[in-house]
């Protein structure tokens, strides 16, 4: 079932709220990560706070408790129902066991989940989704039930039909001897696909180096710490004035080590994470591209089948066969399905057109912010380094003889 409601201009928590109650708003925050459970089954739960004046919602404010797999549920539902839209990506599921409950990891995940929900709340179509409302408002038991259904092995009837049809079309392809791949080949779409796939490669490389850069900050911090300590010990062996000089040098070195560790964390959160998010977004687009491919294939095949049925029907009509009635019913059914498939495909195409524009603008903004913060952080760090060392110069100039 597809949603085709009219988008409203709803503002969310990512934009500053304009005038109060009259203007529709929906703002969500993901907060307060808490570790629940024990041992292997331990997990993190989050408080999801919704503030809204929309009539579809149960009130001005609602707080629910959600866990990671609930977010996954929401994403999967949206992916199913809003084909053609680039569903915002989720942070990775599995993490190395050691880090899964580290404060930094939890905070990064919380921030990413917050961004995820807010992107949905800001999206003109997605924000109207019933599943979003469920996610934001249902009590925990209901949510658990929903989530369980989704992951169960019992597929919905609609899915089974789809699977059947897929097999059918494959068989007919083989029988009819046409193995040609059914793909869109318009120049623009080809360009887009190529762009997306290449972009992922480039971004992944950039993200890799960004991550290494974080490590380098940490390593430099560590070596400054060790150097500072060693130099202090050396100073303790030396008489004055060298001893004092070494001691001061060591102290500064240790101080800078702390600044470097801090900056490492900043670079991780404000630079590397946005890059990773960018990569995930591109992967989400790839998934949409795959969906479009499937929809296109269906549309093509059903068109073909419809034509064949039509030809068959005409033949039967000409021969005044008794099977005409049956064939006519089949023909109408297939025709309806084909038209539906075509509509679905075209909706995806239209959506993607809008989405691409949105995506590019969003990414320019988000990357701009990331670059700005990175540059500010690096400048701040470099200035701290300069200041710290500079303070030693007067005494060193005087060879510590004062």
């Amino acid at each position, binding site marked *: 079932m597809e949603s085709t409601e009219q988008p409203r201009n709803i503002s969310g928590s990512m934009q500053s709220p304009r005038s109060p109650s009259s203007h529709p708003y929906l703002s969500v925050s993901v907060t307060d990560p808490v570790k629940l459970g024990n041992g292997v089954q331990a997990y993190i739960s989050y408080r999801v706070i919704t503030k809204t004046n929309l009539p579809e919602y149960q009130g001005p404010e609602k707080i629910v408790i959600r866990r990671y797999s609930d977010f996954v549920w929401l994403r999967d539902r949206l992916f199913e129902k809003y084909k053609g839209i680039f569903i915002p990506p989720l942070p990775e599921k599995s993490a190395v066991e050691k880090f899964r409950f580290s404060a930094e990891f939890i905070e990064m995940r919380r921030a990413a989940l917050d961004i995820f929900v807010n992107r949905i709340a800001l999206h003109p179509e997605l924000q109207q989704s019933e599943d979003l409302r469920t996610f934001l408002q249902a009590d925990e038991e209901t949510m658990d039930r929903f989530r369980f259904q989704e992951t169960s092995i019992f597929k919905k009837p609609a899915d089974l039909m789809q699977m059947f049809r897929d097999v059918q079309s494959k068989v007919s392809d083989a029988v009819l001897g046409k193995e040609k791949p059914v793909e869109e080949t318009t120049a623009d779409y080809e360009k887009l696909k190529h762009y997306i796939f290449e972009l992922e490669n*480039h971004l992944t490389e950039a993200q890799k180096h960004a991550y290494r850069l974080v490590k380098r900050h940490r390593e430099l911090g560590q070596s400054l710490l060790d150097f500072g*300590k060693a130099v202090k*010990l050396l100073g303790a062996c030396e008489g004055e004035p060298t001893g004092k000089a070494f001691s001061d040098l060591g102290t500064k070195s240790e101080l800078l080590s702390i600044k470097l560790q801090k900056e490492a964390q900043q670079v991780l959160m404000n630079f590397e994470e946005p890059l990773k998010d960018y990569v995930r977004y591109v992967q989400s687009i790839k998934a949409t591209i795959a969906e479009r491919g499937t929809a296109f294939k269906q549309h093509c095949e059903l068109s073909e089948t419809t034509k064949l049925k039509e030809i068959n029907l005409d033949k039967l009509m000409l021969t005044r066969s008794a099977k005409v009635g049956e064939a006519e019913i089949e023909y109408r059914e297939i025709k309806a399905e084909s038209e539906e498939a075509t509509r679905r495909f075209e909706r995806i195409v239209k959506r993607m057109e809008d989405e691409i524009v949105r995506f590019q603008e969003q990414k320019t903004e988000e990357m701009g912010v990331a670059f700005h913060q990175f540059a500010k952080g690096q400048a701040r760090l470099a200035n701290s380094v300069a200041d710290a*060392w500079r303070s030693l110069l007067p005494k060193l100039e005087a060879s510590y003889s004062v």
Partner: protein
Amino acid sequence: MMGSENDEESHLHSSKEDMEKLFLREDGDPLTKSNVNGDKSNSNYRSAMSTLFDSRHPSIVVTPADSDPLFAPPSYYSESRSPRSKPNGGDRVSSYLEPPSYADVIFSPFDDISEINGSEDGHSQSSDSLSRSPSSLSSDYIKITVSNPQKEQEATNSMIPGGSTYITYQITTRTNLSDYGGSEFSVRRRFRDIVTLADRLAESYRGFCIPPRPDKSVVESQVMQKQEFVEQRRVALEKYLRRLVAHPVIRNSDELKVFLQAQGKLPLATSTDVASRMLDGAVKLPKQLFGEGGGASSVEVVQPGRGGRDFLRMFKELRQSVSNDWGGSKPPVVEEDKEFLEKKEKMYDLEQQIINASQQAESLVKAQQDMGETMGELGLAFIKLTKFENEEAVFNSQRARANDMKNLATSAVKASRFYRELNSQTVKHLDTLHDYLGLMMAVQGAFADRSSALLTVQTLLSELSSLEARAEKLEVASSKVFGGDKSRIKKIEELKETIKVTEDSKNVAIREYEQIKENNWSEVERLDRERRADFLNMMKGFVANQVGYAEKIANVWTKVAEETRQYDRESS
């Protein structure tokens, strides 16, 4: 701005260097040759050093890269124009780079290449003796260069061709000291000659802190590439000889003069065989100890019993040291000098801390190196992204993003270069720590000389007392025989001869021991003084260097922050 990039599409393929140059050319930067050595990950600063010194990479010459169009023509002192340190009136405190001495030391191109190859260069002060306290005799001048390694054949008498080969090095001395025969001269020496020189000096200058010579390192010579090994050795030899002439006493030694001047085969004896030394007559006796006199036999006795020939002597000293250790008999001369023992222990502690600091310095250098490399790689990745977005741009938002990325990328590349420059300077400064390791070994050597001299004295004292005891016994026995015991009396006379010689030797040994003690003391004083000054200089250089480059890097990033001002979402 975007258009010109499309023109360069065809050039912007794989090569990192090309990409870098291309982008900087566009910004109006001078086309700087950069050490884009990102592929080599140097694991420690020793190899960082060798990379920096590596004559295969002439591109290491880096001129300050921040000749941004925003600033006036490129200048070493561009920091003074940065917002942080605007010179206002007489305010010279804001940027400590203004005193020319720092800027020269820090920001002069690291141009050691010419020096490595042995030619004259104007930075004689800055490279090897960067952190060294200036020599007290500033008008005297002696400079040594080692160059031109060549393979030579061992001369053999056999008819069979292909004798063993060895490498010789050209050793060039430039000096204005009057002791030397000229102002510039060269000789060819092989490594074996260095060993000989070192051995001779060790004998002649007991108690002094003699800089340790380069290792023989047989294993390394098998493992390393020949060329690399030879180069490493050349550098080590040069350092060693320079240290020798830096030593105020050793620089005047005959052995050194002979080594530096005598053409052809090195006329210094290769072994400690005293007999052949005497026969050679080529080496003067150590003046410091004896003046011109001294009986031959006393000299013979007093030299440390290290040579392979004097087994008896070695045996006696060994016996003595054993008895010293077991404390069975209290040795007649005990190292009572508490001050010495304390000093020795202090020196040991100091050595440990220098080792530790030197190791941490290596880690620091590596970390700085890595930071620079990764920053550079990040920059290049973004340059690729920029190019890609521009090529494929359908929307203006893409072009805007590409522009933002370009700013980030160029700054990252610039910052990367600054990190690497910073590092090459850091290496020079912190190398002082490593140098002092060698000197600490020299101190150990000096202390060891003292101990062995003391052992000699103790041995002789025991010897003397046992001889005297024997003599007395004989006399007693002989006096009991009426009319004299001819054989015993003869023995007594012989014994008395030996006692006299031993007595003389003992006196010589004591004199030598006292002299060595004095040498120790003055050397340690001198070393302490020099070391303190050197360490202070090292710190000064290191710190000034850090300040300078941190400022440059800050400027680079401040610029990007400015350019992306529109994305500032913080309500400051």
